[in-house]
């Protein structure tokens, strides 16, 4: 695997044989995985749709991480529209950054505003102007240049231009190649961003060197590193989530650094003085963690996502095994479970037997399903943005899941609408976006994630239970909407199989 010397990260449909169009049961999917569907000959890989609705591309998803990086200016090297979605983050982004650093600035971004002339003659001139302006005007530590489809197609040699510009700027310049048309799998964005981070942010920190190193200092340093771990956060998590995970790992004697979201450039340097890199979601981090292991020999853990009791137990145990801290971990897990289990009782009474449909990122939906089963609810359907090998370990925490419907679709509310019409769940737990359709089914909706709510760890399980209970108590808003507005799909669509439009492109 020599990805890092390449200009950009490979698409996930090639690297992981990921699928964005699938419909079947969890049992079928598990068999599919066993028989090598995510291998070279994989059957899931090339499927697509004859009818499709808009979905995120790797550019927009890349911004969800890039916009969180502190002391950085982002340049959208593209026509004026690309990355304008950052408008939605102007306010919250600053608030969230300030939870980590009270003096942090909000998002600053520039668009190179490529026009018809640039499409013919190249966008180099505007890129140069924008980079120099950003450096002079805002004095950021880093300038991130995210390029869209157009410069890729007109063949701007962005890396050379930026390498040359870097000699004139105080800021480090980080190219991120995330043109939307390069991949059908939105999650390739994580690789694109990490690719840029690896090239520019990751380097050993400059520490004072002892002329003669005293043994005690050396031991202290070694001990410190032996207890440091990095937890790879995601932009959809909240500060409360981080504090909960930190609390749990501190409790077994580990020090935690969170990267990449909301980190400062130097956090990435210190992250190399660490003994384990811990992912909370395989969809996000495998590309980065594998390369760091190869280059810096830091082991990594990609297993389950710490959402739900069993998943959190498993996550903590797996981590503790690296450090011989299993005994401490088991003590913690017992204590936490005892407390939480009692606290969930009243919600179990209210929620037991309710039927739920969950859609969103593959790892997150399966992990969240565990909370629902814990509450005595029944998971009746799942929809993942895409499917790949990282879904496998998360299934372990679920009971009686094999007959449950699972599909792969990045957004595609038309399919979801058809499925909901068949399954008639009592509650929907869903990724943001597309709720103009979902709401009109007249059901209570809980967001699958929310950067200002706690979902992770034991406290997150309680919060999800509490919120589900609250949302189910009154969903008149969606009910009234369903009575007074209409869905845009023709009647005939609901008579067809929800996967009617899936086609194989091989």
């Amino acid at each position: 695997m020599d990805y890092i010397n390449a200009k950009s990260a490979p698409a996930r449909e090639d690297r992981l044989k990921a699928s964005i169009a699938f419909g079947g049961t969890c049992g079928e999917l598990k068999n599919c995985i066993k028989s090598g569907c995510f291998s070279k000959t994989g059957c899931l890989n090339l499927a697509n749709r004859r009818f499709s609705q808009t979905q995120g591309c790797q550019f927009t998803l890349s911004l969800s991480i890039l916009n969180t990086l502190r002391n950085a200016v982002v340049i959208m090297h593209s026509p004026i529209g690309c990355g304008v979605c950052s408008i939605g983050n102007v306010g919250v982004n600053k608030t969230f950054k300030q939870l980590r650093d009270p003096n942090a600035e909000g998002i600053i971004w520039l668009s190179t505003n490529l026009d018809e002339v640039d499409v013919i003659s190249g966008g180099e001139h505007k890129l140069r102007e924008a980079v120099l302006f950003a450096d002079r005007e805002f004095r950021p530590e880093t300038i991130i240049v995210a390029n869209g489809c157009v410069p890729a197609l007109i063949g701007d040699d962005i890396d050379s231009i930026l390498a040359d510009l870097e000699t004139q700027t105080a800021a480090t310049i980080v190219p991120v190649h995330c043109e939307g048309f390069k991949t059908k799998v939105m999650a390739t964005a994580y690789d694109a961003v990490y690719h840029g981070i690896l090239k520019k942010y990751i380097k050993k920190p400059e520490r004072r060197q002892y002329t003669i190193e005293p043994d005690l200092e050396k031991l202290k340093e070694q001990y410190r590193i032996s207890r440091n771990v990095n937890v790879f956060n995601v932009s959809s998590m909240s500060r409360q989530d981080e504090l909960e995970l930190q609390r749990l790992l501190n409790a077994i004697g580990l020090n935690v650094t969170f990267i990449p979201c909301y980190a400062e450039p130097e956090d990435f340097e210190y992250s190399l003085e660490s003994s384990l890199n811990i992912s909370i979601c395989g969809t996000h981090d495998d590309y980065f963690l594998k390369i760091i292991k190869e280059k810096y020999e830091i082991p990594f853990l990609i297993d389950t996502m710490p959402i739900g009791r069993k998943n959190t137990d498993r996550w903590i145990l797996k981590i503790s095994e690296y450090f011989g801290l299993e005994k401490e971990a088991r003590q913690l897990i017992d204590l936490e479970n005892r407390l939480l289990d009692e606290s969930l009782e009243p919600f179990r009474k209210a929620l037991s037997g309710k039927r739920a449909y969950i859609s969103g990122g593959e790892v997150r939906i399966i992990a969240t399903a565990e909370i629902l089963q814990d509450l005595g609810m029944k998971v009746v359907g799942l929809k993942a943005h895409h499917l790949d090998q990282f879904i496998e370990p998360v299934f372990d925490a679920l009971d009686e899941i094999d007959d449950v419907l699972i599909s792969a679709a990045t957004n595609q509310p038309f399919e979801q609408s058809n499925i909901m019409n068949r399954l008639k769940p009592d509650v929907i737990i869903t990724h943001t976006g597309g709720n103009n359709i979902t709401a009109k089914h007249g059901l209570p909706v809980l967001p699958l994630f929310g950067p200002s709510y706690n979902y992770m760890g034991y406290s997150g399980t309680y919060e999800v239970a509490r919120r589900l209970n609250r949302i189910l108590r009154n969903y008149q808003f969606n009910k009234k909407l369903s009575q007074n507005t209409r869905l845009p799909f023709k009647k005939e669509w609901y008579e067809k199989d929800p996967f009617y439009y899936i086609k194989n492109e091989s």
Partner: protein
Amino acid sequence: MSKFIDRPRYACALGGALSTLRAIPCAIPIIHASTGCGHNLHNAINPGAGYLGGGYCGGLALPSSNVSERDVVFGGENRLREQIASTMEIMDGELYIVLTGCMVEMIGDDLDAVVSEFADCDKPVIAVHTPSFRGNSFTGYELVLCSLIQKYITRQTNKDPSLVNVLGIVPAQDVFWKGNLREIKRLLERLGLKVNTFFGESETLEDIKNSGRASLNIVVSDVYGIDAAEKFKDIHGIPYITTGFPIGADATKEFLFVIADALGIEESLAESAYESERQVYYDYMERLSDIYNDLDLQRYAVVVGDSNYAPAISRFLSDELGWLPELVVITDSLEAAQQNELAKRFENFESGLKPSVRFDTDTSSVKKYIAEIWPRNRNERYFNFMNPTVIIGSVYERDLAAEFGFPLLTVSYPVTNRVVLNRAYAGTNGALSFTEDLLGILVAGR
């Protein structure tokens, strides 16, 4: 030649086209573009326009061909053909509009040829070329309207002398578009007119189709909607006038008289319409006579906004509210001739004030202009500072407002810190709402 932009306050042509179609009931957009275009633009339009939402079939429900590398190599026409056919199978609409993104235009897909294959369908399918590199949201609005004018609106030789169309308010880019259209329509109805606003309350595709019968197009903007009005003139022989965007009683009066004059309506009708507006308006304004003078609610103002709002608000603040708009930054990307036209709107304020007017697309520039027009105190004991000031701008001005300690009212796109439904800032009713919101900030702590 255009330059880079520091935090643009508009999306691309495709974005403008999508927000325009978002405002037309039962019009189904079909995006022929890269995977992320629709999603990205929805995530700008929705929050930026005070949480407009996806509506009937917008947002992530937008049909999109989602072309990827393979289509870029082999051409995306087959994919488009498939997508149009399947969209008509599944999406329940009255009009299907195919919009393009950059990639498919660059690889040379023949949009018009593919769309012409659907000419015999029972519902019309119309093609509009909207690549991002062709212009911004305002361009997208013009492009969609021009296509409708050319390909959808029925040509009619018999004009209805009392029917007019309103252009120049761009849905979503004008965050208060729907309320504003309602108010403009209400004012025009006072002159006995029937009004198409294309995107107004209870208006339908049928109204759009029949807008060719109108005898005048009223462009309530010096910049937006003029291409569409020209197109109307060419294709349907409907003349147009531009009036500027009216906020306040003075501007409303001028608006009513200009329209009456253009249509040969008796001046007395305009006079009586204005008179009853004025009475209601000042009945409300009179309430403020105490608090305004008790507390000295006069303020300096910095106005940052688009070509419609910036002049209209500045004039209202200056000539009706008695404030001091010292600096106005117009944030659109404009030609020199358009800038000159807009600059005229700041001449001859009744108050005699002459705000410093700047044309600049960069968000970071506003602060520099404040420093230019009103130098900072350099430790002088007595110093006439521009304070108290209120900034009327967009959410981008929040950091600036915080830095100076000035209150901020967000009016111009993007407005992510407010939820906007049927509120209007145009006309007399709009000016009352604007005053409520503005002075509301000043008494919020009481």
